[in-house]
Protein backbone atom coordinates (compact mmCIF):
# COMPACT_ATOMS: atom_id res chain seq x y z
CA UNK A 1 0.00 0.00 0.00
CA UNK A 2 1.20 3.50 -0.80
CA UNK A 3 0.80 5.79 2.21
CA UNK A 4 -0.37 9.30 1.34
CA UNK A 5 1.31 11.64 3.82
CA UNK A 6 0.78 15.36 4.31
CA UNK A 7 1.20 18.14 6.87
CA UNK A 8 -1.16 20.93 7.84
CA UNK A 9 -0.91 23.87 5.38
CA UNK A 10 0.14 26.17 8.26
CA UNK A 11 3.76 25.07 7.76
CA UNK A 12 5.81 27.71 5.96
CA UNK A 13 7.19 26.69 2.53
CA UNK A 14 10.77 26.87 3.88
CA UNK A 15 10.00 24.18 6.45
CA UNK A 16 8.64 21.72 3.86
CA UNK A 17 12.14 20.55 2.90
CA UNK A 18 12.50 19.05 6.39
CA UNK A 19 9.16 17.25 5.96
CA UNK A 20 10.35 15.83 2.63
CA UNK A 21 13.37 14.44 4.49
CA UNK A 22 11.06 13.04 7.17
CA UNK A 23 9.10 11.28 4.40
CA UNK A 24 12.29 9.74 3.01
CA UNK A 25 13.15 8.55 6.54
CA UNK A 26 9.65 7.08 6.82
CA UNK A 27 10.05 5.22 3.51
CA UNK A 28 13.46 3.79 4.42
CA UNK A 29 12.55 2.74 7.96
CA UNK A 30 9.16 1.20 7.19
CA UNK A 31 9.50 0.03 3.61
CA UNK A 32 6.17 1.73 2.93
CA UNK A 33 5.96 3.62 -0.33
CA UNK A 34 4.84 6.81 1.33
CA UNK A 35 4.17 9.81 -0.86
CA UNK A 36 4.48 13.34 0.59
CA UNK A 37 1.82 15.69 -0.73
CA UNK A 38 1.42 19.34 0.23
CA UNK A 39 -1.74 21.42 0.06
CA UNK A 40 -1.69 25.17 -0.36
CA UNK A 41 -4.95 25.80 1.48
CA UNK A 42 -7.16 24.23 4.13
CA UNK A 43 -9.89 24.00 1.50
CA UNK A 44 -7.65 21.80 -0.69
CA UNK A 45 -6.59 19.71 2.32
CA UNK A 46 -10.16 19.13 3.51
CA UNK A 47 -11.25 18.16 -0.02
CA UNK A 48 -8.40 15.62 -0.17
CA UNK A 49 -9.42 14.21 3.22
CA UNK A 50 -13.04 13.91 2.05
CA UNK A 51 -11.81 12.05 -1.05
CA UNK A 52 -9.87 9.58 1.09
CA UNK A 53 -6.52 10.84 -0.22
CA UNK A 54 -4.86 11.44 3.17
CA UNK A 55 -3.60 8.40 5.11
CA UNK A 56 -1.11 10.06 7.46
CA UNK A 57 -1.28 13.72 8.44
CA UNK A 58 0.59 15.95 10.87
CA UNK A 59 -2.48 18.01 11.69
CA UNK A 60 -3.14 21.05 13.84
CA UNK A 61 -5.34 20.59 16.91
CA UNK A 62 -8.37 22.20 15.27
CA UNK A 63 -8.37 19.70 12.40
CA UNK A 64 -7.37 16.84 14.72
CA UNK A 65 -10.60 17.22 16.70
CA UNK A 66 -12.84 16.61 13.69
CA UNK A 67 -10.54 14.04 12.07
CA UNK A 68 -10.50 11.88 15.20
CA UNK A 69 -14.11 12.31 16.35
CA UNK A 70 -15.90 12.59 12.99
CA UNK A 71 -13.68 10.66 10.56
CA UNK A 72 -12.20 7.99 12.78
CA UNK A 73 -8.52 8.92 12.38
CA UNK A 74 -6.22 7.43 15.04
CA UNK A 75 -3.86 9.79 16.93
CA UNK A 76 -0.25 8.58 16.93
CA UNK A 77 2.19 11.16 18.31
CA UNK A 78 2.84 14.83 18.96
CA UNK A 79 6.06 16.81 19.53
CA UNK A 80 7.38 16.28 23.04
CA UNK A 81 7.57 19.29 25.33
CA UNK A 82 6.17 21.73 22.77
CA UNK A 83 2.84 23.46 22.35
CA UNK A 84 1.26 25.79 19.82
CA UNK A 85 0.93 29.25 21.37
CA UNK A 86 -0.19 32.53 19.81
CA UNK A 87 1.10 36.10 19.94
CA UNK A 88 -1.11 39.10 19.20
CA UNK A 89 1.07 41.98 18.06
CA UNK A 90 0.65 45.52 16.74
CA UNK A 91 2.98 47.79 14.77
CA UNK A 92 5.68 49.29 16.98
CA UNK A 93 4.24 52.79 16.54
CA UNK A 94 0.63 51.78 17.31
CA UNK A 95 -1.06 53.79 20.08
CA UNK A 96 -2.63 50.54 21.35
CA UNK A 97 -0.90 49.38 24.54
CA UNK A 98 -3.14 46.46 25.52
CA UNK A 99 -5.68 44.08 23.98
CA UNK A 100 -8.55 45.85 25.73
CA UNK A 101 -7.76 49.06 23.82
CA UNK A 102 -8.52 47.39 20.47
CA UNK A 103 -11.86 48.71 19.22
CA UNK A 104 -14.72 47.07 17.27
CA UNK A 105 -14.40 47.39 13.50
CA UNK A 106 -10.66 46.69 13.37
CA UNK A 107 -8.92 44.62 10.72
CA UNK A 108 -6.77 41.75 12.00
CA UNK A 109 -4.07 40.19 9.86
CA UNK A 110 -3.72 36.42 10.24
CA UNK A 111 -2.77 33.31 8.35
CA UNK A 112 -5.56 30.82 7.59
CA UNK A 113 -4.35 28.55 10.44
CA UNK A 114 -7.57 27.79 12.37
CA UNK A 115 -5.72 27.06 15.65
CA UNK A 116 -4.07 30.46 15.58
CA UNK A 117 -7.30 32.24 14.64
CA UNK A 118 -9.24 30.41 17.38
CA UNK A 119 -6.73 31.21 20.13
CA UNK A 120 -6.25 34.75 18.80
CA UNK A 121 -9.98 35.47 18.87
CA UNK A 122 -10.24 34.08 22.43
CA UNK A 123 -7.54 36.50 23.54
CA UNK A 124 -9.58 39.37 22.02
CA UNK A 125 -12.71 38.49 24.04
CA UNK A 126 -11.74 40.81 26.94
CA UNK A 127 -12.03 43.66 24.39
CA UNK A 128 -15.56 42.50 23.40
CA UNK A 129 -14.21 41.62 19.97
CA UNK A 130 -15.38 38.62 17.97
CA UNK A 131 -15.90 37.61 14.36
CA UNK A 132 -19.03 39.79 14.11
CA UNK A 133 -17.22 43.07 14.81
CA UNK A 134 -13.75 42.44 13.36
CA UNK A 135 -12.44 41.70 9.90
CA UNK A 136 -9.81 39.01 9.36
CA UNK A 137 -7.38 39.79 6.55
CA UNK A 138 -5.94 36.37 5.64
CA UNK A 139 -2.30 36.48 4.53
CA UNK A 140 -0.24 33.65 3.06
CA UNK A 141 2.53 33.61 5.68
CA UNK A 142 3.60 35.13 9.00
CA UNK A 143 6.08 37.54 7.37
CA UNK A 144 3.14 38.83 5.30
CA UNK A 145 1.08 39.23 8.50
CA UNK A 146 3.97 41.28 9.91
CA UNK A 147 4.12 43.33 6.72
CA UNK A 148 0.38 44.13 7.03
CA UNK A 149 1.04 45.63 10.45
CA UNK A 150 4.09 47.61 9.32
CA UNK A 151 2.07 49.05 6.43
CA UNK A 152 -0.84 49.89 8.76
CA UNK A 153 -3.15 47.65 6.75
CA UNK A 154 -4.25 45.92 9.97
CA UNK A 155 -4.57 47.10 13.59
CA UNK A 156 -3.35 43.80 15.04
CA UNK A 157 -1.92 40.52 13.85
CA UNK A 158 -2.16 36.90 14.99
CA UNK A 159 1.09 34.92 14.93
CA UNK A 160 2.03 31.38 15.85
CA UNK A 161 4.41 32.21 18.73
CA UNK A 162 7.12 29.98 17.28
CA UNK A 163 6.96 31.89 13.96
CA UNK A 164 7.01 35.25 15.78
CA UNK A 165 10.08 34.25 17.77
CA UNK A 166 11.89 33.20 14.57
CA UNK A 167 11.53 36.71 13.08
CA UNK A 168 14.76 38.65 12.62
CA UNK A 169 15.51 41.46 15.06
CA UNK A 170 14.84 43.94 12.23
CA UNK A 171 11.24 42.71 11.93
CA UNK A 172 10.73 42.35 15.68
CA UNK A 173 11.81 45.97 16.21
CA UNK A 174 8.92 47.09 14.00
CA UNK A 175 6.34 45.07 15.97
CA UNK A 176 5.14 45.07 19.57
CA UNK A 177 3.52 42.00 21.19
CA UNK A 178 0.37 42.76 23.22
CA UNK A 179 -0.26 39.31 24.61
CA UNK A 180 1.08 35.76 24.32
CA UNK A 181 -1.02 32.72 25.08
CA UNK A 182 0.06 30.21 27.70
CA UNK A 183 -2.23 27.27 27.05
CA UNK A 184 0.37 24.47 26.91
CA UNK A 185 -1.89 21.69 25.67
CA UNK A 186 -2.66 22.61 22.05
CA UNK A 187 -0.35 20.87 19.65
CA UNK A 188 0.03 19.32 16.22
CA UNK A 189 -0.42 15.57 16.07
CA UNK A 190 0.20 12.70 13.63
CA UNK A 191 -3.09 11.07 12.71
CA UNK A 192 -3.63 7.87 10.75
CA UNK A 193 -6.72 7.28 8.60
CA UNK A 194 -8.96 4.23 9.13
CA UNK A 195 -7.80 2.96 5.69
CA UNK A 196 -4.20 2.80 6.86
CA UNK A 197 -4.84 1.55 10.40
CA UNK A 198 -2.99 -1.72 9.68
CA UNK A 199 0.26 0.29 9.85
CA UNK A 200 -0.48 1.85 13.25
CA UNK A 201 1.85 -0.30 15.39
CA UNK A 202 4.68 -0.05 12.87
CA UNK A 203 4.42 3.76 12.76
CA UNK A 204 4.09 4.07 16.55
CA UNK A 205 7.26 2.00 17.05
CA UNK A 206 9.11 4.10 14.48
CA UNK A 207 8.06 7.47 15.97
CA UNK A 208 8.66 6.40 19.58
CA UNK A 209 12.24 5.32 18.82
CA UNK A 210 13.15 8.04 16.31
CA UNK A 211 15.11 10.24 18.76
CA UNK A 212 17.23 7.27 19.84
CA UNK A 213 18.70 6.76 16.37
CA UNK A 214 21.36 9.12 15.05
CA UNK A 215 19.73 9.65 11.65
CA UNK A 216 16.26 9.91 13.23
CA UNK A 217 17.52 12.52 15.68
CA UNK A 218 18.92 14.62 12.81
CA UNK A 219 15.55 14.52 11.01
CA UNK A 220 13.83 15.60 14.22
CA UNK A 221 16.30 18.46 14.70
CA UNK A 222 15.61 19.72 11.18
CA UNK A 223 11.89 19.72 12.00
CA UNK A 224 12.62 21.64 15.22
CA UNK A 225 11.57 18.84 17.56
CA UNK A 226 13.36 16.76 20.21
CA UNK A 227 11.26 13.59 20.18
CA UNK A 228 7.72 12.35 19.62
CA UNK A 229 5.37 11.88 22.54
CA UNK A 230 2.96 8.94 22.21
CA UNK A 231 -0.08 10.08 24.18
CA UNK A 232 -2.28 7.59 26.04
CA UNK A 233 -5.84 7.44 24.67
CA UNK A 234 -7.27 9.42 27.63
CA UNK A 235 -4.78 12.23 27.04
CA UNK A 236 -5.95 12.46 23.43
CA UNK A 237 -9.60 12.49 24.49
CA UNK A 238 -8.87 15.18 27.07
CA UNK A 239 -7.17 17.40 24.47
CA UNK A 240 -10.14 16.96 22.14
CA UNK A 241 -12.55 17.86 24.96
CA UNK A 242 -10.46 20.94 25.65
CA UNK A 243 -10.51 21.96 21.99
CA UNK A 244 -14.29 21.56 21.98
CA UNK A 245 -14.54 24.19 24.73
CA UNK A 246 -12.63 26.66 22.56
CA UNK A 247 -14.40 26.23 19.25
CA UNK A 248 -17.64 28.11 18.71
CA UNK A 249 -20.71 25.92 18.24
Amino acid at each position, binding site marked *: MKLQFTVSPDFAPESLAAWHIFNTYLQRQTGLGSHFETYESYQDLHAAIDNGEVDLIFANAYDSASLVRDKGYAPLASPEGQADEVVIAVAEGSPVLG*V*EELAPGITIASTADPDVQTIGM*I*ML*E*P*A*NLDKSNTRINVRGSYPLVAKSLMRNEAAAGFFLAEAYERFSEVIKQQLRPL*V*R*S*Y*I*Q*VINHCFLLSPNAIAHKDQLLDLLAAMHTQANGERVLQDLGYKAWHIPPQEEV*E*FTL*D*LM*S*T*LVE*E
Partner: protein
Amino acid sequence: MRDMQAQDVVPGCEQWIQPLYAEEPRRLYVSEEEVPYPDGRLIVSSTDLEGIITFCNDSFVQMSGYSEEELMGQPHSILRHPDIPRVAFVDLWQTVQAGKRWQGYVKNLRKDGRFYWVYATVVPNKRGGVIKGYTSVRRKPSRSKVAEAEALYKKLLAEQAP
Protein backbone atom coordinates in the same frame (compact mmCIF):
# COMPACT_ATOMS: atom_id res chain seq x y z
CA MET B 1 -15.52 20.44 52.73
CA ARG B 2 -13.02 22.15 55.04
CA ASP B 3 -13.92 25.67 56.25
CA MET B 4 -11.82 28.56 54.99
CA GLN B 5 -9.21 29.53 57.55
CA ALA B 6 -8.83 33.03 59.02
CA GLN B 7 -5.02 32.80 58.84
CA ASP B 8 -5.14 32.16 55.06
CA VAL B 9 -7.13 35.23 54.06
CA VAL B 10 -6.34 38.87 53.36
CA PRO B 11 -7.33 41.52 55.95
CA GLY B 12 -10.85 42.95 55.87
CA CYS B 13 -12.74 39.79 54.90
CA GLU B 14 -16.38 39.32 55.81
CA GLN B 15 -17.49 35.95 57.25
CA TRP B 16 -20.22 33.94 55.53
CA ILE B 17 -21.83 30.59 56.16
CA GLN B 18 -22.45 28.92 52.82
CA PRO B 19 -25.12 26.22 52.64
CA LEU B 20 -23.96 23.36 50.39
CA TYR B 21 -25.96 20.63 48.69
CA ALA B 22 -25.51 17.24 50.44
CA GLU B 23 -22.80 18.65 52.68
CA GLU B 24 -22.38 20.54 55.93
CA PRO B 25 -22.45 24.35 55.54
CA ARG B 26 -18.99 25.88 54.99
CA ARG B 27 -17.49 28.97 56.65
CA LEU B 28 -16.21 31.45 54.08
CA TYR B 29 -14.11 34.59 54.29
CA VAL B 30 -14.92 37.03 51.51
CA SER B 31 -12.95 40.11 50.50
CA GLU B 32 -14.06 42.91 48.16
CA GLU B 33 -10.69 42.76 46.41
CA GLU B 34 -10.54 41.36 42.88
CA VAL B 35 -7.51 39.58 41.42
CA PRO B 36 -7.20 40.36 37.69
CA TYR B 37 -7.36 37.40 35.34
CA PRO B 38 -3.94 36.99 33.68
CA ASP B 39 -3.77 37.69 29.93
CA GLY B 40 -3.43 34.75 27.55
CA ARG B 41 -4.06 32.04 30.14
CA LEU B 42 -6.62 29.28 30.26
CA ILE B 43 -7.64 27.79 33.58
CA VAL B 44 -8.37 24.10 33.05
CA SER B 45 -9.79 21.50 35.40
CA SER B 46 -11.61 18.21 35.22
CA THR B 47 -13.95 16.57 37.68
CA ASP B 48 -15.62 13.22 38.10
CA LEU B 49 -19.40 12.85 37.83
CA GLU B 50 -19.84 14.17 41.38
CA GLY B 51 -17.83 17.34 40.74
CA ILE B 52 -14.71 16.14 42.57
CA ILE B 53 -11.54 17.66 41.08
CA THR B 54 -9.43 15.06 39.25
CA PHE B 55 -7.14 17.43 37.30
CA CYS B 56 -6.11 21.07 37.47
CA ASN B 57 -3.50 22.97 35.49
CA ASP B 58 -0.89 25.48 36.72
CA SER B 59 -3.13 28.47 35.97
CA PHE B 60 -5.90 26.96 38.10
CA VAL B 61 -3.50 26.48 41.01
CA GLN B 62 -2.09 29.99 40.62
CA MET B 63 -5.44 31.78 40.42
CA SER B 64 -7.22 29.76 43.14
CA GLY B 65 -4.44 30.34 45.70
CA TYR B 66 -4.63 26.66 46.77
CA SER B 67 -1.87 24.13 46.15
CA GLU B 68 -2.50 21.30 43.72
CA GLU B 69 -2.55 18.87 46.66
CA GLU B 70 -5.24 20.95 48.38
CA LEU B 71 -7.40 20.99 45.24
CA MET B 72 -7.19 17.39 44.07
CA GLY B 73 -10.01 15.30 45.50
CA GLN B 74 -11.99 18.35 46.66
CA PRO B 75 -15.40 19.35 45.29
CA HIS B 76 -15.15 22.04 42.58
CA SER B 77 -17.45 24.13 44.82
CA ILE B 78 -14.33 24.91 46.88
CA LEU B 79 -14.21 28.00 44.61
CA ARG B 80 -17.87 28.87 44.92
CA HIS B 81 -18.46 32.52 45.71
CA PRO B 82 -21.59 33.52 47.69
CA ASP B 83 -22.39 36.18 45.05
CA ILE B 84 -23.26 33.48 42.51
CA PRO B 85 -26.86 32.31 42.92
CA ARG B 86 -27.68 28.62 43.32
CA VAL B 87 -29.79 28.71 40.17
CA ALA B 88 -26.67 29.36 38.05
CA PHE B 89 -25.06 26.14 39.28
CA VAL B 90 -28.31 24.21 38.91
CA ASP B 91 -28.40 25.34 35.26
CA LEU B 92 -24.75 24.34 34.79
CA TRP B 93 -25.25 20.85 36.22
CA GLN B 94 -28.51 20.20 34.39
CA THR B 95 -26.91 21.26 31.10
CA VAL B 96 -23.76 19.15 31.33
CA GLN B 97 -25.56 16.14 32.78
CA ALA B 98 -27.77 16.28 29.67
CA GLY B 99 -24.58 15.93 27.61
CA LYS B 100 -24.47 19.56 26.46
CA ARG B 101 -21.95 22.37 26.74
CA TRP B 102 -22.52 25.14 29.34
CA GLN B 103 -21.03 28.63 29.11
CA GLY B 104 -21.31 31.49 31.54
CA TYR B 105 -19.62 34.14 33.64
CA VAL B 106 -18.56 33.01 37.10
CA LYS B 107 -17.10 34.80 40.12
CA ASN B 108 -14.69 32.48 41.92
CA LEU B 109 -13.55 32.67 45.53
CA ARG B 110 -9.83 32.24 46.21
CA LYS B 111 -8.24 30.63 49.25
CA ASP B 112 -7.22 34.11 50.45
CA GLY B 113 -10.81 35.45 50.30
CA ARG B 114 -10.24 37.57 47.19
CA PHE B 115 -12.12 36.81 43.96
CA TYR B 116 -11.66 36.60 40.19
CA TRP B 117 -14.12 36.56 37.31
CA VAL B 118 -13.93 34.05 34.48
CA TYR B 119 -15.79 33.17 31.32
CA ALA B 120 -16.29 29.43 31.79
CA THR B 121 -17.08 26.65 29.35
CA VAL B 122 -17.92 23.23 30.78
CA VAL B 123 -18.20 20.11 28.61
CA PRO B 124 -19.09 16.53 29.46
CA ASN B 125 -16.27 14.04 28.84
CA LYS B 126 -17.98 11.36 26.77
CA ARG B 127 -16.15 8.07 26.39
CA GLY B 128 -17.89 5.51 24.20
CA GLY B 129 -21.04 7.62 24.38
CA VAL B 130 -21.10 7.61 28.20
CA ILE B 131 -20.38 10.69 30.33
CA LYS B 132 -17.39 9.91 32.55
CA GLY B 133 -16.73 13.37 33.99
CA TYR B 134 -16.55 17.04 33.09
CA THR B 135 -13.87 19.44 31.85
CA SER B 136 -14.03 23.15 32.51
CA VAL B 137 -11.97 25.78 30.70
CA ARG B 138 -11.99 29.37 31.95
CA ARG B 139 -10.77 32.39 30.05
CA LYS B 140 -10.48 36.12 30.59
CA PRO B 141 -13.90 37.80 30.42
CA SER B 142 -14.76 41.25 29.09
CA ARG B 143 -15.54 43.79 31.81
CA SER B 144 -18.85 44.79 30.24
CA LYS B 145 -20.01 41.14 30.24
CA VAL B 146 -18.92 40.83 33.87
CA ALA B 147 -20.97 43.93 34.73
CA GLU B 148 -24.02 42.39 33.02
CA ALA B 149 -23.51 39.09 34.87
CA GLU B 150 -23.09 40.90 38.21
CA ALA B 151 -26.39 42.72 37.74
CA LEU B 152 -28.19 39.51 36.75
CA TYR B 153 -26.75 37.51 39.67
CA LYS B 154 -27.71 40.26 42.14
CA LYS B 155 -31.28 40.08 40.89
CA LEU B 156 -31.34 36.27 41.06
CA LEU B 157 -29.86 36.29 44.57
CA ALA B 158 -32.55 38.71 45.71
CA GLU B 159 -35.20 36.31 44.35
CA GLN B 160 -33.49 33.22 45.81
CA ALA B 161 -35.23 31.58 48.75
CA PRO B 162 -33.06 31.69 51.90
